[in-house]
């Protein structure tokens, strides 16, 4: 569930920012998408995406752990 939420929020918030950018720069959707997601060169890209990936990993782990806990609970019953 956490992973789903993560992906959902990620996609939709990117979408939101893109919609705003479309309006501001008068570009088409795909142009804006390309334009927004290509970040500046250098270390910065890696930092941002590393952060995002750790977020994704964390949500995987959390999901896994919670499903395990749930199944343990069921067993206990």
């Amino acid at each position, binding site marked *: *569930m*956490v992973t*789903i*939420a*993560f992906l*959902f*929020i*990620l996609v*939709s*918030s*990117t979408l*939101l*920012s893109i919609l*705003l*950018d479309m*309006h*501001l720069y008068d570009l088409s959707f795909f142009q804006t998408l390309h*334009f*927004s*997601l290509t*970040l500046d060169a250098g*270390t*910065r890209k890696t*930092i*941002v995406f590393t*952060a*995002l990936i*750790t*977020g*994704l990993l*964390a*949500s995987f782990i*959390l999901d896994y752990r*919670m499903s395990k806990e749930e199944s343990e609970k069921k067993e206990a019953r």
Partner: protein
Amino acid sequence: MQKELVEKISLTQLFILVSAFLFGSAIVVGIGGEAEQDSWIAIIVACLLSIIPVWFYIFLVSRIPEKNLFEIMEIAFGKMISKVLILLYILYFFYISARVLRDFGELIVGDMLVNTPIEVISITFMLFVAYILYLGLEVLGRFSEIYAPYLMGSILAVGILLLFSRELHVKNVLPILPEGIGPVMNTVFPKLITFPFGELVAFMMILPYASKVRYAGKTTILALMVSGLILAYSSFVQIATLGPEAKLRSKFPLLTATGEISLWNFIERVDLIIIFVVMFGILVKISIFFYGGLKGLELVFNRPYRAFIYPMAMIIAFMSIIISKNFAEHISEGISMVPWIIHIPFQYGIPLLLFPFVLWKSKGLRSEGKKR
């Protein structure tokens, strides 16, 4: 000592949270600059006017006790519709947190750590927000009790220090209202009424957790007025120090004004220190929006909100970067689009829509209560 399951915040804490929330980014980026030397009047007017919506938020929350905005929406609109609306709200909350975070990042990178990537600032700051929300709302409340005196104290001290440095030229605020109330009202609506005052909509997520709900509303309104006054004071000091033109020109007028302080050749360049004071306001603002969003996720995805903290914090850090390419884009979005497209529907539209439903449902609830 059993741990209390429902987190409570005291009225003092609520007061501090509301005022720190209102200072938040507002005190950094400077508000109401368009009203030139009358911006302090504009702030006071906006503060007084926004008592109405804030009272309205409080009314909605108090109508159905112990339920936050999202739970009320669930009661009013039913599961399906409310889920969609809640998701929209979550997006709104996260988007605003990201914007505030960007404001803060720009501040740090622009003035203090010039070569440090803004991304690192965003991420480190979000890590802290994640940590404090992981510890809980209660901890955030107590945390603010410690830092609030410094925040308020230094905002007040800036004016006094400027006065001693002979930089406070009160005549700069003259003439008062040379062109009537028109320009002031143009600033008040829609800008000031939505930012920072309308953003108190996020407190509909917090109010139900106040320890004395009966007084929570009064406390919030008192905090609103006090912080409105302090914001106006700060704006007044900025105008008196810099003059309206320079204030409007400055990216972070409070810092520019503080930079003028010079006492005994020793207290100089205090603006760097003010940044830290401001950092606390930013923290509260981001935390509360973030908390609102997390509570929404908890409701929609049916998992404890702590589970979402780290991933979502990273998304907000990411968002704060891609939200705009450059500072100009960030500001122009903030001026031209965010108030109309984003603030007004979420701050006024949906709560207003909620109003008749809440009245109807709460009547139902009450009569049910009587039957029992």
